Each structure stands twice: as C-alpha cells, then as structure tokens.
C-alpha cells in the first residue's frame, strides 16, 4: 500500500521541483521589476517585494517613442509571421504531397537555410539594404524576419501536412471538389495546430531580433522605424545596468508572447505532435 502511494506521487513530486526550477528565474525577473533598488542588490535575497515600487515600470514605459516602438514591433512581427505562413503553406504542400524533380534538393536547401548565421550576416544585409536605399524603414525588417522564420515554418508545416491522411483529401475529390478546394476545405482546417505552433515560434524569433534593426534603423525620434528590442537593451549601458528597469521592460516585453501562447495553448501543444512526429 505504502509503496503504491509513493509510486503514484513521485511524478508529482518531481513536477513540483521542475516547476520551481523553471519558474524561479521568471519569478525573479517579475519580482525584481517591482523592487526598490536597495532590495535588488541585497546580501539577503528579498523574495517578495513587499515594499514594492512601480518606478521601474514608469522608467521603462516613459522611454522616448515607447508606444511607437510597440506599434512598429507588432507591425513587423505580425506581417513577417503571416508572410512566412502563406509562403510556407504553399511550399510545404508541394513537398509533402507531390513528387517532382528537385524535391529533395529543395528539402536540403530548407535544412541548410536553418543554419544561416544571421547575427554575423548583418553587415552583408546592411550593405544590400543601403544599396537599395531602404534604411530606416520597416519593409526590409519585415522581409528579413520573414526569411529568418521561413525555413522552420516550411520544415514544420510539411510534417503536419504529411500527417493528414491522403484518403481524406481524395475522398473530397471523389465528392467533386477540385484539388484546391479539397485542400482548403479538408486539409487546411487540420493544419490549424501546425499554423499556430509555427506562428508562435516565428513570433518569438521576430519579436526578439536585435542585431539587424540596430544597424538598419538608426534614426531616432518621432516617426522612426525602431523596434522594441532596442528599447529593451537601452537600460544597460557603459555606465551600468539598470537592473530594475531592464526587468520591468523584460516583463512587459514578454507579455505579448505569453498572451499568444495562452491563446494558442491547447492547439499549439497538442498540435506540435504531427509536425514533430513527421519531422
């Protein structure tokens, strides 16, 4: 009897330990954002910011052009993710469902494309954008962010498409649908989880990108094309890191990702299945 209770409770015990392990750094970020400076650096850690302050949040949101940057970040990220989803859906349908010459080469290119060292390619990207006279604009950012997430999106979606039984599509066509209609009516709805998984990944990637925007969009002031990662790192400087403000900014910065996750949660988690299995 005793053994079986232990046998049943050990997964829960481990889960609690893991919960603390994964949660603690996040909690530390969140709680630090509310701490007074004297409590941030303290020999005896202050675990609960009882004498809290909102000062760091006002420093963070009071930065120049904060709301414009929020707008820019959303525009760029959402467009980049949507763009890559559309392009990837078309491409992954082709490689998952059709046989044609060059298919394998394309798959190889997609795998190689995931290795692209974007951080080190920034100067090449910069020279191209400079040549095209597109600096200080959201357009190149959107395009390149789209490209950064495209290989992963194709890679994952093709797994999802492959997992949808062909029979479903074929029976729709027997019922008189064209192949396009069959795709839109039968396959596409089943792809929802896959689309959500990849958009979450794409969102995190594009939302966080810093090295490129740093040198492409240098103009500051009203109407500039700067994005939030520039704001996020601005509380760390040569003269010292404003930890409180960095943590407050990071907390705010992570919120959209969390909202999207909560929104997609059921589908995203359940949904990674097919893509992963078909990998």
């Amino acid at each position, binding site marked *: 009897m005793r053994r079986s209770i232990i046998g049943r409770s050990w997964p829960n015990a481990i889960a609690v330990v893991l919960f603390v392990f994964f949660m603690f750094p996040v909690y530390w970020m969140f709680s630090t954002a509310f701490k007074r400076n004297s409590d941030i650096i303290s020999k005896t850690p202050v675990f609960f910011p009882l004498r809290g302050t909102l000062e760091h949040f006002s420093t963070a949101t009071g930065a120049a052009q904060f709301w414009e940057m929020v707008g820019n970040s959303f525009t760029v990220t959402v467009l980049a993710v949507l763009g890559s989803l559309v392009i990837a859906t078309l491409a992954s349908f082709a490689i998952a469902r*059709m046989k044609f010459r060059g298919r394998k080469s394309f798959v190889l290119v997609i795998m190689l494309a995931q290795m692209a060292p974007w951080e080190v390619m920034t100067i090449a990207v910069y020279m191209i954008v400079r040549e095209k006279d597109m600096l200080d604009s959201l357009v190149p950012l959107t395009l390149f962010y789209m490209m950064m997430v495209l290989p992963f999106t194709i890679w994952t979606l093709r797994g999802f498409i492959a997992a949808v039984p062909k029979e479903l599509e074929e029976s729709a066509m027997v019922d008189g649908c064209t192949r396009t209609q069959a795709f839109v009516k039968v396959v596409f709805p089943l792809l929802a989880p896959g689309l959500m998984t990849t958009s979450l990944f794409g969102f995190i990637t594009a939302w966080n990108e810093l090295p490129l925007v740093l040198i492409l969009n240098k103009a500051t002031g009203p109407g500039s094309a700067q994005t939030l990662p520039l704001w996020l790192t601005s509380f760390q400087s040569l003269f010292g890191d404003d930890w409180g403000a960095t943590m407050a900014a990071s907390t705010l910065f992570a919120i959209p990702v969390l909202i999207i996750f909560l929104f997609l949660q059921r589908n995203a988690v359940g949904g990674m299945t097919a893509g992963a299995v078909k990998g």
Partner: protein
Amino acid sequence: MAVQSEPVRVQSPGGVKGSPLGSGRPVVGPSLLSRSTPYLLLLPAIVATLALLGWPLVKTFELSFQNLNKRQLILHLTEWNGFSNYKDQLTSSEFWHTTGRTIAFTTVNVVLIMVGGTLVGLLLNRLGKKMRILLQAALMLAWAMPIVAAATVFSWLFDSRFGVVNWFLDQLGWHSMANYNWYSSQYGTFFVIILLIVWQSIPFVAFNMYAGLTTIPAELYEAARMDGAGSWRIFRWVVFPSLKPFFLSTTFLEIIWVFKSFAQILAVNAGGPQGLTQTLPFYAYIQGTGNQHYGIGATIAVLTILMLVVLMAYYFRIILKQEDEL
C-alpha cells in the same frame, strides 16, 4: 480520426508502400499545368530564399575575401585580399581552440537538452491534468522569457556576493560557497551558461516530446506491458521507434541553435575569464561587429557554416533518406 493510429506505421521503414494510393499523381492528370503545379507552389519560397537569404550569403562569402573594416565600410571601398583572412584564421591557434571548445560546448548542451527534454516530456505524459498544465505554464514562461532578461537574471543569481544561489548554498550549510565566484573559472562560467541554455531549451523539446507521446496508441503500451516489459524497455521498443523522426529532427534543430548561440555567452561573462568561454559564433561576432573587422567576421562565419555542414552531413543523409520514404 485516422491519424491516431496511422503515423506510427507510416513511419516504419517497411510501411511506406502500405499507403494504398501512393502519391497524388494518379488523381491529378499529367497535364502541363499539373506538372508545373509543384514548382508554382514553391516559387514564392524559392524567390524569397534566393533574394533574402541567398543574396546576403553570397555577399558574406564575398566579404570574407576582403579587407573590410571601418574605413572601407565608411568610404565604400572594396579591398580584395585573396585568401589572407582564411589563412590568418586557419593558422591561428586561437581559432582552433575555439573550434574545439565550440564542438564540446554544443555536444554537452545538446545531450543535456535532449535527455532533459525527453524526461520532462515523459513526465508530462504521466501527470494528472492539473499538474501538467501547471508545469506546462512554467515551461512556457521559461521559453518566452527574453534572452536579455534570462541572461541577466542567471548571471545575477550566480553573483558571488548578491546571488541567490550562493546564499541558498550557504543556508544549506555549505558555507564555503557563501562568496564563491562562479565566473573566475572556465568551468564555473560554462556551468552558468549551460544551465541557462538548457533551462531555456528544454521546454521546446519537452512540448514536442509530450505531443509526440500522445500520438502513440495506448494499445502499443498495453501490448508491451502484457509481454512484461519495464519502463526502459517500453521506451526502447515502443516510444523510441515511434518517435525516431521526432528525435532526429529535434536534435538537428537543437544542434544548430546551440551551436549558433552567443547572446548568452556575451551576457553572462563576455567570453571570460580571459576568453576561455569564447565559442565560434561569439568570436565571429566580436571580430565582426565588436571590433569592426567585418571581413574577418565574414570569414569566420563562412568557416562556421562549413563546419556545421560537415558535422551535420550524417544527419542530412538520414533525413534525406527518410524523404525517399515519404
């Protein structure tokens, strides 16, 4: 839904031809239009890849043969210098040390991430609903935390005087750890960096693993258990074969991501102490963007890609082989 029982069999090497209708060809007539359909579908992806990735890559390759520093960039000068960037790197002992370190660093991280992620995934599958959602939420929060914040928090949890970790170890009675300096040694610094990367990477693997597990039909477990198999045997003979493609593709992604990571190294201890925690992408970034020797940065980037391709050649073969079976 038929998917539930299908994927497992579709994946097993012998099961490919089991799909009764084969490819889509029999249904769609072999007209010119339908033969060009796949290419039309791929067109946007190909155009985007060529223009947005191919072009910068070719440009980076070009730059790797140039002497490109502040001066040349400002004055728009092109100064070719042949293979001298490559020669300098390939004959520098620092480069090779860094390479060796990068490979070791990647291996340790990926092994920890895959083992840890798999175990967490298995655990998720065993937990009750409430506990599972709780743990999933924690995993998600870790995954979504901005790298700047995560790196700052970790480097500071391990701070010698004000860090929670040392305080905690001291409270537990390990008093010599009270002011222990994690960053004064290569291993100490790597410990913090690896913990950070593993912490932030496990969620992706665990989610995928858990999702994969839910597709394995319960009957398979039942059958194995009837045969008297223990946990390890079930994993080895039921779970692993079913999820082999998952392990392949996730390991592939993790190798690339870990190999390329440098923001964590920069933020935790800036490659210190004394450059002993520098990895190749960090080195390329410092040389390129930091010291503004863009040509040398490009050279290291090209060498890094080549190295990755060589290291991954085995993977490419396995995955492409799988393609044949699709």
